[in-house]
Structure formats: structure tokens, C-alpha cells
């Protein structure tokens, strides 16, 4: 027997779509639930407070905060400039900014190593001056900024393009200089998008693995961030790896919830 389906619109969907749809949800959810089920809950406090765990947690927190701050300081101006720019050069820059988002992180790490490593194009002159960035905490932050800043730029630029130039033009007619307009109109209106972009950037930096291990190595307390620690412990001490993984899952969940809430807030405000 066939089930009659409405011919048009989103009013009705073929019921068989539910089979792959449910499979997709299960595939995404079951591994996460698997970790939650396997976490040795009673030992979590002890596992998270070992010397190496605390080192990894502290290093990740510090480097991700610094990377997010740098991404904001450099990426926000880039987004503001790009959103109001058209033409071939702007298109080229937009492509360049997007590449690190889709590039395999290990390639990103290699690129950084080739450039800033001891024998790199910029690394060699820096080494002469006594500055070595490779395999240091600075290298961790650089790797994180490289892969995470594009998330901030694209999120903020998209929001800025969607809001248009109307209110900024209105501010100018009222006598506001470009800097005053940026400070009192553009940035406040963008605040939810900046926060959402910042959260995404922080989350991406927190999960950074490939570029970090390639460019910064894995030195406890210096370059061994949470993901690196989890990778190291996955067979040596599975319980500790699971406890640390739980931290990353919770942070990821909070980030998704926060960005969702912020984007709903933006929609409500911009409604007429």
C-alpha cells in the first residue's frame, strides 16, 4: 500500500525520510552518550586534579583566552573592513580568510612551522634576534589563532552585511564621526554576533590539535593542551582521558547553547 503525500510545499514530507534522519541523529549522539556512560564519575574530581591534568586544563584555558582576545583584536577590524568592501581584492581576502577553516589542521601546523620555525622564512631572522617561537606556548596560541580567527571574521562579517548600512548612515547625518558611529552604533548592534563569534572561536581554539602538535609539540605545562593530553592518555589512562574529554564536551555544549541564545536575541532585536 502506498501512502499519499501532499504534492507541494513543506506541508508534508515522505515518511521514509525519517529513517536516514533518525540514523543521522543516532550516529551523532551515541558516541557522545557513550563517553558520558563510560566516564568514571566517582573518580572525576581526582582525575581532573592530577598534576598533568591541571597543567593541561590551565594551559588550555590560558592559551584559548589569549587566542580569542587576539582574534577579536585583529579579526574584528578585518570583519568591519571586509563587510564594507567590494571588488576583486575583497573577494580574494575573503577567500584567504576562509581557507584556514577548511584546511586540515596538520597542514596549518606545517605552514606555521615552515614560516615561523627555527629555519623558517620569518623564524630564521627572529632566531637571530634570539626569539624562538616554535615549540613554545606562544606557538600554541599562534596555531589556535590561525585556525580559529576565521570563525570570528566570518560570523561578524556575515552579521554586519545582514544589518546593512542604514543606521550607520543615519548616525553620520546626525553628526557622528566614523569612530563615534563605530563605538556607539555599529559595535553595540553587533555585540550578540561578536559574542557568538567569540564563543565559536574559543571553542575551536580549545579543540585545536593538529596544528598545535605539528607546530608546538607536546610538552607538559608548555604546549600540551587538553586535546593533546587526551590523545596521550587515551591508552595509558583511559579514565583520565574520559574525564578530560567530558570537560571538552561540556564546554562545546555550553558554546552551542550560548551562540544559539545570542542569535535568537539578535533576531528579536532586529525585528521591526
Amino acid at each position, binding site marked *: 500500500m502506498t501512502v499519499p503525500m501532499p504534492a507541494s510545499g513543506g506541508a508534508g514530507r515522505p515518511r521514509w525520510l525519517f529513517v536516514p534522519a533518525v540514523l543521522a541523529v543516532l550516529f551523532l549522539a551515541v558516541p557522545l552518550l557513550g563517553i558520558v556512560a563510560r566516564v568514571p564519575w566517582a573518580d572525576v574530581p581526582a582525575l581532573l586534579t592530577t598534576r598533568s591534568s591541571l597543567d593541561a586544563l590551565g594551559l588550555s584555558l590560558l592559551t584559548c583566552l589569549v587566542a580569542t582576545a587576539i582574534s577579536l583584536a585583529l579579526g574584528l577590524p578585518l570583519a568591519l573592513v571586509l563587510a564594507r568592501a567590494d571588488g576583486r581584492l575583497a573577494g580574494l581576502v575573503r577567500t584567504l580568510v576562509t581557507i584556514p577553516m577548511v584546511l586540515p589542521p596538520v597542514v596549518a601546523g606545517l605552514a606555521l612551522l615552515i614560516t615561523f620555525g627555527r629555519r623558517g622564512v620569518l623564524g630564521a631572522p627572529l632566531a637571530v634576534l634570539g626569539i624562538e617561537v616554535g615549540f613554545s606556548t606562544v606557538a600554541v596560541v599562534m596555531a589556535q589563532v590561525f585556525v580559529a580567527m576565521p570563525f570570528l571574521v566570518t560570523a561578524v562579517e556575515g552579521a554586519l552585511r545582514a544589518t546593512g548600512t542604514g543606521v550607520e548612515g543615519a*548616525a553620520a*547625518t546626525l553628526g557622528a564621526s566614523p569612530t563615534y558611529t563605530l563605538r556607539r552604533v555599529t559595535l553595540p548592534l553587533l555585540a550578540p554576533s561578536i559574542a557568538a563569534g567569540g564563543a565559536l572561536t574559543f571553542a575551536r581554539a580549545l579543540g585545536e590539535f593538529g596544528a598545535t602538535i605539528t607546530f608546538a609539540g607536546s610538552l607538559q605545562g608548555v604546549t600540551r593542551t587538553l586535546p593533546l593530553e587526551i590523545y596521550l592518555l587515551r591508552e595509558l589512562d583511559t579514565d583520565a582521558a574520559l574525564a578530560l574529554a567530558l570537560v571538552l564536551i561540556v564546554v562545546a555544549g555550553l558554546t552551542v547553547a550560548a551562540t544559539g541564545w545570542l542569535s535568537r536575541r539578535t533576531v528579536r532585536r532586529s525585528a521591526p
Partner: protein
Amino acid sequence: MRAVTLDARVVARGIDAHLDVAPGRVVALVGPNGSGKSSILQLVGGQLRPDGGTITLDGTLVGGPGVHVPVHRRRIAVLEQHPLLFEHLTVLENAAFGLRARGVRAAEARARAQRELDAVGCGELAPARAWEVSGGQAQRIAIARALATDPRLVLLDEPLAALDVSVAPAIRSLLRRRIRDEGRTALLVTHDAVDALALADDLAVVEAGHVVAVGPVADLLARPRTPFVADLVGVNLLAGTASGDDALTLPTGQRVVGVADGPLTAGREAIASFAPAAVAVHTSDPSGSPRNHLRATVTGVEPRGALVRLSAELGDGSPVAADLTLAASVDEGLVPGCPVWLVVKAAQVALYPR
């Protein structure tokens, strides 16, 4: 001294316009879509840079060769279709924005902003968030916000176009009070003869990037000289050659007799205008009538409320509109393509030189 002088060209938009505005005058810019009205406003406002020519405000050069005073230093106010309030601020902060941007102290700016809000009837909305107010209220607040800065010139770009018909009349009379009655200088772009009559002293007709006519609103609307203005006030306009004190000859050779308020010069270009309601339509030649009767072909019939608007074309393609009762249009069997005689009493035709 002129409040505004504009003599500017924008090649990409086909603008080559000249316009002077005396202090305290409100000039309405009217013209077909795409004729360059808004571009002229943007040239004066500074959002658009001319390729050549000069623009002065109160005798100061603000645009010209090597000179471009940016928008925020022109001391103008702009009101558009959309109020463009700052939605992250309160209504009071919106109204105070321009003063704060110019460095006025917070307390002083807020006091002035409150007075401006009171003057537009939105005083009690001061603590509300800008996104909480209605469309009509938002436009009132935008007016308060614009006028709080004591602009030397107000630019209005169809400020009533986006408003509900139930709200527009109140905003129109508010603009009349706050702009025309207070003697401010303003440029107004509009598509509406009512706006032009209510808000403006002078009319500037813009066509294809040029200002083709300037004069007191009542004069230009009473004696339309271009098809666009005739359309704006809803009258028929036929151009021809004067052939006597009270008659003109159309390009089709037909004569139109009317009433001239001054003697016409035979052989000079002249215009006949009459209301669609003054036109009667016959399917046979009402010969012997002392009235004007013009041979035409029906091009369209469309209902307009209780009446029917009949569009017809003379032999040379000049359009003429007639308003008929529904019964008359049915009785006569008027359909597009139908040959007709349009009959107009001479007393209802105004004649004037082009």
C-alpha cells in the same frame, strides 16, 4: 545668500542638475522614478560625490573640485522612509544621539532630547526601547532626533512613503508644523501632490537628471507643464500651438477651445489641461455641439471606486483619461480598441503658455 546652491554632475547616474534654495524655503523635488531626485538629495547630504560642479551650504563650499565635506560635518538632518532608530538605545538616547555625537554634555543633551520628544508627542515614550515603538511613533522619534541637532538644512526622502495611510496624515501635519511653520530650510522628495502642497513652498521638477522647472508649488501644480506633474495632480495635459486668444491646435490638427487666464500668443507653444471628470465619452460623433470633441481610441478601462477610469489615445498617441460612471461605461460598450469621441466643455479647459 543662498541656503543651498547645487550645480553638479554625476556621470554614472546621468545627473546634471542645478538648484538654488533660499533660506527658510521648503523645496519639493518631484519627478518620475529614477529621474535623480534622491541622487540630488545625496549630493547635498554628502552621501554622493559629484564628478564635477560645486555644492554650497549657507555660502560654504561643501563639495567641489578637491573639496568634500563628509556627511557628519555638513550640519544637516536626513529623514527617510524608514526611521532607522538605533534599536539598542532607548527613545531618549536616540533623540539625544546627535547632540552627544557633537560633544554636548549628557544632562544638557537629555533635557533637549526630552523637549524634542515632547514636541512630537512622544515625550512619555522616552524610557522605552526603540524597538518597542510603533511605525508612526518611530517616525515621530526620528523627526525629534533629527531636529534636536539644529540642522541648517533638513533633507526629507519620502518620509511618509512607508507609513500606514491611517498614520501618514498626522506625521504630515507634524512635519508641516516642525519644518515649514518654524521656517526651516528643507528639500523634500515626494511622489505625492498632497505632500508637496502641505509641506513645500516651491516645487522643483526633476526629469532625466535635470531640474526642468522650479516655482511656487501652487503655480506649478495649477498649471502643469510636464506629463509627470499633470499625472501627479491627476489632470489631462495636451500640448499644442496657440491659435487665438482662447484656443490651441493639437499636433493632430484638432482645435481645443478653453479659458486662458492671460492672452495667448498665436503660434507659440501652449498647454491645455482639464480634469478626467470633465470628459464625457461618446461612441458616435456628437456633431453640432459647441464643446470640444476629440477623436480617440480606448486603450484601457479600469474600475476606480464607484467610477471607471477610461484611458484613451488621440491620433498622435497623446493619452487622455476620463472618469465615467460604471453604468455609462457598460451602456456604451467601451472596450480597448473602441473608437470614441471625447467631449469637454470649453469652460473646463485651462489654457496657458508652455
